[in-house]
């Protein structure tokens, strides 16, 4: 992904954490292995991280580590689904998805008594797409459908949803978080949503 990167050195300086802490959090799976990106710099091999994600993650760890054990934190950050189940009304009441977003999900799925985590996540992602204002209802339906069809592929792993438009025609794709995607200039990326970030956010909303 063409996300901005930050070097390990700059990261430690910016966040004030030490090497020991960084390695400890890596051991405890609080920072995923995929975020450690090796690149050749003029000083040799250096390690980089996706800037926004690592800064956000470290911020959360620092804020929560006094209240939760490292293992609890690891559970919160893992892309694996939790046992939570909610009714459609609860999903709206908890502010997870707006009514229109949920309607799109239910129209596709049919009537559902209680939604599993994966379903709630799909509704949440659709909600985020709509909320951005960049995605239309029809495009959101397309997103919903794509998520349903292919969600299983990325089980346990992070992926990114991209909504694309060219010449007024909309499409979307799901890409693994480690993929480098390059599009031809005619394509406009209308929305980019990380499933991993949504999972994290959703777990916090549910806890």
């Amino acid at each position: 992904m063409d996300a901005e990167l930050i070097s390990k050195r700059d990261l430690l300086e910016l966040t004030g954490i030490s090497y020991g802490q960084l390695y400890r959090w890596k051991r405890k799976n609080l920072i995923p292995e995929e975020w450690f990106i090796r690149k050749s710099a003029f000083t040799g091999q250096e390690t980089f991280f996706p800037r926004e994600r690592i800064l956000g993650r470290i911020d959360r760890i620092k804020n929560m580590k006094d209240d939760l054990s490292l293992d609890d934190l690891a559970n919160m950050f893992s892309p694996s689904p939790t046992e939570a189940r909610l009714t459609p009304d609860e999903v709206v009441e908890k502010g997870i998805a707006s009514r229109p977003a949920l309607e799109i999900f239910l129209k596709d799925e049919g009537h559902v008594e209680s939604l599993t985590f994966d379903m709630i996540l799909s509704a949440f992602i659709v909600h985020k797409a709509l909320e951005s204002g960049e995605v239309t209802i029809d495009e959101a339906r397309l997103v919903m459908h794509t998520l349903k069809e292919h969600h299983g592929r990325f089980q346990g792993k992070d992926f990114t949803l991209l909504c694309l438009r060219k010449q007024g025609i909309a499409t979307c794709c799901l890409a693994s978080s480690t993929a480098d995607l390059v599009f031809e200039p005619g394509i406009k990326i209308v929305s980019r949503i990380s499933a991993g970030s949504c999972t994290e956010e959703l777990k916090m909303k549910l806890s």
Partner: protein
Amino acid sequence: MEQSTRHDLKIYGVGDATGGEFNEVSINGQGDVNGGVVCARFNLNGEGTVNGPLKAQDGSVLGTTTIKGALEADRFKIFGTARIVGDVSVKDLDIDGTVTVHGGVKSDAINLRGNTKIHGNCTAERFDCKGSFTIDGLLNAGKIDITLYGSTKVKEIGGETIRVRKESGPIANVVNAILEKLDFKQRLETDTIEGDEVSLEYTRAGTVRGNHVRLGDGCEIDLVEYKGTLDQAPGAMVKEAKKV
């Protein structure tokens, strides 16, 4: 799964058995188990192969073993020779002998003596070694204490407190001097060491980064970056040192 419905598997002399779920597995002599094993206790005295993964609460090997799969246990001791064709996930790991792991090692506490080879990464809270080892990946452990016996290679090391030294004492000093003369280099070789408190001897590294860094005799470091203090002994060669 109630323990009472599981049987024991005991081999005395030479024998083969089918894998499965057991209470206690005990091989005295030479035994091969065809298939994976899940058990409470695993004891091997002699020579044995498990043709599949081994999962136990407690285990010990006194002799030679090959485990053709992952090794998972709360406590596992190996005295002798072992080859594990898979990942090792053992909370309390005690090795004294020659062990090769064709995978990674994940542990709470690792105690190594002898000669260990790990093809993947090694992760632990405590890593104690009095011996030599080769780790092809990253050694990531909270507290690392390495007493060098022979040549040790690790791709990279990261942790909180990292200490690398040679055994010292009247006899050890004599032995070390003889080994050096015979060109048996007792060194730790690695690309990068990063930690909070780093104390090194007889280490050859590309880069060392830490808060407080102590470099003793026999160190050959290309670049040291330290946040707090750098204590460099006269016998330590450092190409470049930077306070960051």
